């Protein structure tokens, strides 16, 4: 099923018949859409290379019918189509690796209907998260979905990758919030998934499109469960001597039926860095000024030190492991409840009792409020690390409680050979939890950095599978993890291929992702 020979010019002409002037084949646009935020491609960009996967064309549809017409046109000509939201994915899922058409959905960003009475809202999928929340907030509602990328990710991207927000423990992940989807299949047919009657035999189609990362259909609209905006938000910090004790505390809370909105347990290193970085935050005294010559030298020295230290990640991790307990390295838990005042206050009372029983120390409101103020900053700090010659990435895995601590230890040990690694536990369920590892490393040069980067992922993913975890909790598979997917899914890969055949027989939708051709 090789691509038919079609010239870019002919294709552009055909697309113009559908969308008018909203087509581009300008080199600057093609470069801009040649990647998402997969850190591995940033290593190349830092080295001065252009992004590796430029599409042939970019199209900006404004209606579902236009999307359907574009896909029909592409299917006839066997041209790859990669749906694109805001491009903040970190696994390469939105990179048009086979060229072809990038379908930028950001012009489809309307709030179609918001029903405060039925607590349902329908949006077009190109809407940015932050805009979606504002539309709801104006009507006293919330979706409760707050990923740190909220200002640079779209509803469609959330659905495609099974996103989780920072308050997912209360509100659920995006798959729990979606009631129905409008989808254009790979054959260019428009369908509605998720409105099947409960008694009808057959799959729950919405849950098959959610997480399909653009390989089975283009999600154009979604109807979501929304909730009244919370009356109160009660945040507190708690301290635990060890990760295991903190996890035990979280498990008990969830299994007693509590649904905190915020549950974030930082391991010793993450807690230490969290404390140091939040010092002085929000005091308004750290006003920026032009750096002096001395400061620039100090910065340069710090960069050099950081890169040198990270090149010896193994010993660095051991040293920190020995040091942290001595300087009183404990674990910080941020716990927050939100919603109705009366119900939240009762939840807080029950939580307090449980946390004290397992040995937690109440740190008051301060740590919680500080976290809240800086909750979206992480999405904007990545480039600073890269600027310093190092690299950073995150690995988010999940398991049932019986495996969570083993999974934590196994992945940490595997990644620590090549990177400085820290973790937090931030999406909790009665039956288990996700673990969010952040790792920082550096290479002598770009080739060395890429080699290390790949080794870290290989070690982390292999350790995850061996410990009985799942490869991803909310970032998705994309390109970065697809090598490991067959081992996780086994014969489930055949199910995925059958779905692909059923929904995208021409094989044009986001090819080369999710382990699919």
């Amino acid at each position, binding site marked *: 099923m090789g691509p038919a020979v079609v010239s870019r010019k002919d294709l552009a002409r055909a697309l113009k018949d559908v969308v008018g002037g909203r087509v581009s084949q300008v080199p600057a646009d093609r470069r801009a859409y040649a990647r998402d935020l997969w850190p591995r491609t940033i290593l190349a960009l830092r080295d001065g290379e252009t992004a590796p996967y430029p599409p042939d064309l970019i199209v900006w549809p404004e209606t579902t019918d236009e999307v359907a017409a574009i896909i029909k046109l592409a299917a006839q000509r066997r041209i790859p189509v990669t749906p694109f939201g805001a491009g903040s994915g970190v696994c390469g899922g939105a990179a048009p690796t086979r060229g072809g058409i990038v379908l930028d959905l950001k012009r489809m960003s309307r709030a179609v209907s918001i029903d405060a009475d*039925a*607590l*349902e809202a329908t949006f077009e999928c190109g809407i940015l998260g932050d805009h979606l929340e504002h539309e709801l907030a104006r009507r006293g509602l919330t979706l409760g979905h707050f990923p740190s990328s909220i200002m640079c990710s779209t509803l469609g991207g959330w659905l495609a990758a*099974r996103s989780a927000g920072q308050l997912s423990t209360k509100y659920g992940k995006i*798959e729990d919030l979606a009631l129905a989807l409008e989808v254009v299949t790979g054959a260019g047919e428009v369908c509605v*998934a998720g409105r*099947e*009657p*409960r*008694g*009808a*035999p*057959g*799959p*729950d189609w919405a*849950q*098959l499109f*959610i*997480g*399909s*990362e653009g390989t089975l259909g283009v999600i154009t609209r979604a109807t979501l469960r929304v*909730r009244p905006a919370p009356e109160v938000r009660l945040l507190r910090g708690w301290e635990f001597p060890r990760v295991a004790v903190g996890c035990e505390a979280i498990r008990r809370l969830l*299994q*007693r*039926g*509590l649904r905190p909105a915020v549950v974030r347990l930082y391991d010793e290193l993450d807690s230490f860095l969290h404390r140091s970085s939040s010092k002085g935050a929000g005091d308004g005294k750290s006003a920026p000024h032009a750096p002096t010559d001395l400061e620039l030298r100090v910065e340069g020295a710090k960069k050099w030190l950081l890169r040198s230290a990270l090149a010896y990640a193994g010993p660095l991790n051991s040293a920190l492991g020995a040091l942290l307990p001595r300087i009183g390295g404990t674990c910080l838990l941020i716990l927050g409840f939100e*919603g*109705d005042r*009366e*119900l939240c*206050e*009762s*939840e807080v*009372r*029950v939580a307090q009792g449980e946390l004290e029983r397992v040995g937690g120390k109440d740190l008051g409101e301060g740590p919680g409020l500080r976290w809240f103020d800086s909750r979206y900053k992480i999405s904007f700090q990545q480039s600073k690390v890269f600027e310093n010659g190092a690299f950073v990435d995150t690995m988010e895995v*999940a*398991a*049932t*409680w*019986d495996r969570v601590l083993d999974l934590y230890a196994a992945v940490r040990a595997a990644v620590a050979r090549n990177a400085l690694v820290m973790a937090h536990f931030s999406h909790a*369920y009665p*039956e*288990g939890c996700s673990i969010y590892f952040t790792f920082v490393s550096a290479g002598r040069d770009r080739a060395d950095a890429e080699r290390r980067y790949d080794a870290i992922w290989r070690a982390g993913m292999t350790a995850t599978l061996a410990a009985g*975890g*799942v490869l*991803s909790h909310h970032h998705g*598979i994309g390109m970065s993890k697809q090598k490991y*997917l067959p081992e*996780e*899914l086994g*014969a*489930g890969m*055949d*199910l*995925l291929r*059958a*779905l692909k*055949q*059923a929904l995208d027989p021409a094989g044009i939708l986001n090819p080369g992702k*999710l382990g699919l051709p």
Partner: protein
Amino acid sequence: MTVALARALSEAVGPGHVTREGKSYTVQPGAPPEVAHVLAIARERKVPVMPVGARTHAQSPDGAAAPGKPKPEILLDTRRMTNLLHLDELSLVVHAQAGIEVRALEATLNERGLTLGDFPAETYRSTLGGILAARAPGRATSRLGPIESTCIGLSVVLADGRTVHIKAAPRRATGPDLMRLFLGGEGILGVITAAVVRIQRLPDARIFAAHALSSVDAALDAARQAMRRGARPAAVRIYDGADAHASGLGTGVDAAGALLLASLTGASAIVDAEARVLEAAAHERGGTALGAAPAEKWWSSRGAPASPGEQPHAEARFQVAAPLGQLAAVYRGVRASLLAAGVPCRAYLAHFHEGGGCAYFAFARAEASDAVARESAVAAGGRPADELGVDAPLQAALRTLKQELDPQGILFEGRLA
């Protein structure tokens, strides 16, 4: 041919486990490899197979085939596969084979202070595989959602004998949720052989609340307000005054009014707060608190076994789902149209979540009464639970999916045909 088939099946599952039932054979494999073996025999002979459990589903195999379509020749009965494979009390999940009866599983769990949750009584008469394969309406609670959403891991034997294991995880972002191909799939794409499902500790506290209100609308509105504020009751039920009296729960309820019943479970401080939230919502709408007794009575009679001689299918049980905003209209519409057709009916509203709920009607079965109920439910914005309205492109995709996974079409298509 049939003798040869019987012999092959006996060899696959052991001689004592094949019985003739009319024109079909009921086969009870003892383990997943035997399921694969039975499917291999079916492929070789091009004989349709239908997985069955306790056969409590309204779509019983005998009635499942449309006229003129082939009936399943092999009923693959999972009820010998009853092992509880792993009880994980730390994660609160249980891994069990598909043929275990839900009430047997529940009894085992109860002995250890555990439970599946307060699912409606009919859930417990089915097998675990059965309740997962048939997305039967009404098997849901406002606290835990529909029963199939408790499933976090699944094993399935496909038509070609391959086994898919979807490992247990609280949530994942590793592609589509492949379990959803089989949950509610009624065995058309594969045979569920085992599942990992979420369980609960028996709650610290269970309290009951009952409120008399002036109308079904007011009762519904009160329940809705409490849930909007964040209360997550284990179960809520609403009767109109007449049905409350007919059910022996009517003390203190005006015949023209309505009764709101709730069962609340969880940590006691929270349950108390939830009860106050519900009471405030009822009070604001002119309700009167009736104490715990009516709700306790309802709860203890819930799921009482059908009296001897009563045919479970003699009475039509019609269920309609509707958004909360339309539920009262559906309720009134169906009642009124049945009454106009001279069909007396009993009814209640239950299984609420923030967005919707279900209306349940029971009346003498007759084709005419069924059609009347259905028509009026749809007219008022409700969706009958046995409706088969799937989008055409998705229906076509399901056809291809079936072709891909079961090219010989040996897994019986039932209502899909």
